């Protein structure tokens, strides 16, 4: 064992160097975003680039430390919908993640623990929906939603994503390993099936619920294509739509865009650090060996 000590030292250093390089790769663009949100476009594209905004930037008369942030919040028409749009994003993401967890766990439970006729067909057809790109069903989906008169409403934004096929799949895989003995015992005790679900199955799904909830929250927070179609009114737009305003060709303002990107990321970053345990621990619940 001891003869390896010197070698281990070198290996360890190499491992550290490697890990730090990857760290730089993942974090640099984020640091860049934060720095750039305090700069004007000339500094952002300066050669060579300086990470610390120069002092004459702050001392110049028409700019303050927060100029970009004010621009980011006020938008290009002095019509501040930033917070409203952020609120919309929250509503959509929260409602969708809650319903996804509830409906997917219910469905996954049904698929994992009951042997009804046509179970495989149900499962396969749900899986198949994961294989059609969203771009292909955009127009028919739009027809459904506009037919139900849900344009420019929360319902229009929320309903199509209330449940996800991936969620069902993940729940099913997780519950397959859930010992059936518990369920049988509960049945012997005379508990009704819905009761078994709510008091035994659901509480035992906690880790996968956390992951799935966070995952679908993130997906909806990120969703751009669908809100673009159904939410045209300023007050119903979501945050990704808001950010794209800044990259539209007629008003390319890199500083304000970075400030906007930064502001929009803050809630997710806070959420991320607060729930990092679930992010990191739970990301791997979907593990085939358990399924």
């Amino acid at each position, binding site marked *: 064992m001891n003869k390896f000590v010197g070698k281990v030292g070198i290996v360890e250093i190499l491992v550290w160097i490697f890990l730090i390089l990857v760290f730089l790769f993942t974090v640099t663009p984020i640091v*860049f975003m934060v720095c750039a949100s305090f700069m004007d476009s000339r500094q952002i*594209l300066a050669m060579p680039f300086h990470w610390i905004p120069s002092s004459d930037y702050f001392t110049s008369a028409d700019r303050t430390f927060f100029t970009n942030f004010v621009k980011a919040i006020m938008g290009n028409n002095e019509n501040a919908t930033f917070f409203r749009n952020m609120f919309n994003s929250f509503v959509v993401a929260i409602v969708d993640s809650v319903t996804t967890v509830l409906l997917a766990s219910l469905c996954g439970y049904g698929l994992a623990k*009951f042997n*009804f006729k046509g179970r495989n067909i149900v499962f396969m057809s749900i899986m198949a929906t994961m294989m059609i790109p969203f771009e292909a069903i955009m127009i028919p989906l739009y027809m459904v939603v506009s037919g139900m008169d849900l344009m420019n409403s929360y319902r229009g934004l929320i*309903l199509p994503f209330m449940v996800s096929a991936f969620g069902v799949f993940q729940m099913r895989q997780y519950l397959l390993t859930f010992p059936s003995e518990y369920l049988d015992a509960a049945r012997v005790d005379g508990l009704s099936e819905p009761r078994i679900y709510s008091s035994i199955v659901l509480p035992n799904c906690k880790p996968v619920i956390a992951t799935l909830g966070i995952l679908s929250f993130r997906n909806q927070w990120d969703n751009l294509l669908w809100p673009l179609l159904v939410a045209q009114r300023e007050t119903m737009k979501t945050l990704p739509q808001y950010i794209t305003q800044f990259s539209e060709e007629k008003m390319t303002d890199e500083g304000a865009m970075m400030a906007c990107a930064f502001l929009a990321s803050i809630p997710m970053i806070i959420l991320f650090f607060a729930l990092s345990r679930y992010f990191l621990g739970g990301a791997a619940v979907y593990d085939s060996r358990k399924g």
Partner: protein
Amino acid sequence: MKKNKVYSIEQQQARWGFLFTVPCLIFFAVFSFYPIIYAFQTSFTDRQVLSRNYDYVGLENYVYIFTKNNGGFPLSNSIRATLIFTIGTFIPMIIMSLIIATFLMQLRRDKYRGFFQLMYYMPAVLSSVVAAAIWMIIFDPRGLMNQVSNFIMRSSGVDYNWLVDPVMLQVSTIIIYFWKYIGYFVILFITGLAAIPSTIYEAATVDGSSRWHTFWKITLPLLKPTTAMVSIMAMLQCLKTFSTQFMLYQGGSPRAPIDVITMNIYFTGIRNGRLGRASAMSLVLFVIMLVFTYLQLVANRSSEDVEY
């Protein structure tokens, strides 16, 4: 008599099972099955976005997308772009995340590991729009990437044409994607590694096998199920990629090198209004994904006999 009763209880239970899937099925029926069937049906018509009348044309759309060049953007090029992107992304991604995960497991303190895990996962938290916005500026000719490359290559003032040159453009999309998802796959591998009982390693140490040997002979085989699952998942995700390519195109990059199938569907169907043709393309993508999923199932099955 008794047997009969047991049977009916089972039947009753089974009914509950079906009932549990009903709420989901209703949503899927309205928001997934119906649109998919509609798209399938549309693929056999010459429907255009603004015309109200259309005819059934049989397999004409399918023949067209495989033989004609679809206004300069043939499906063959899209399949090429998609496959290059998928293979170019997921193979390095799997190898890198496996290496990183193994290295992280070597760290002596959990605190360090947690820190790196968090930092690697950070990009996945930002939304795609934000990611594209950041990288567009970094890849600008005057941006950070050229400066860093010039520093590393010890050149001066060379423009590496990150968003312009066909090869570099594909590399750029891969870099962005890689940046976004590496942390996610690292975590998947770490969980896989953590699940390997430490007694196996201890046994190996007692046997006196080197780390390298342990990794190849023990860790890797035991990790096979995780690897299979992760690689196919990454592959499916890559096949469906859209936003990265789309945003770069919007920013002025040429379309052909990064015209992945989803992007071609979007342009053919939404922008140029040829719904029939676009639907046929989505069916092709569907079949491609189906084949890969089948491969996943096969790969998973063959690796299920791994035992600890």
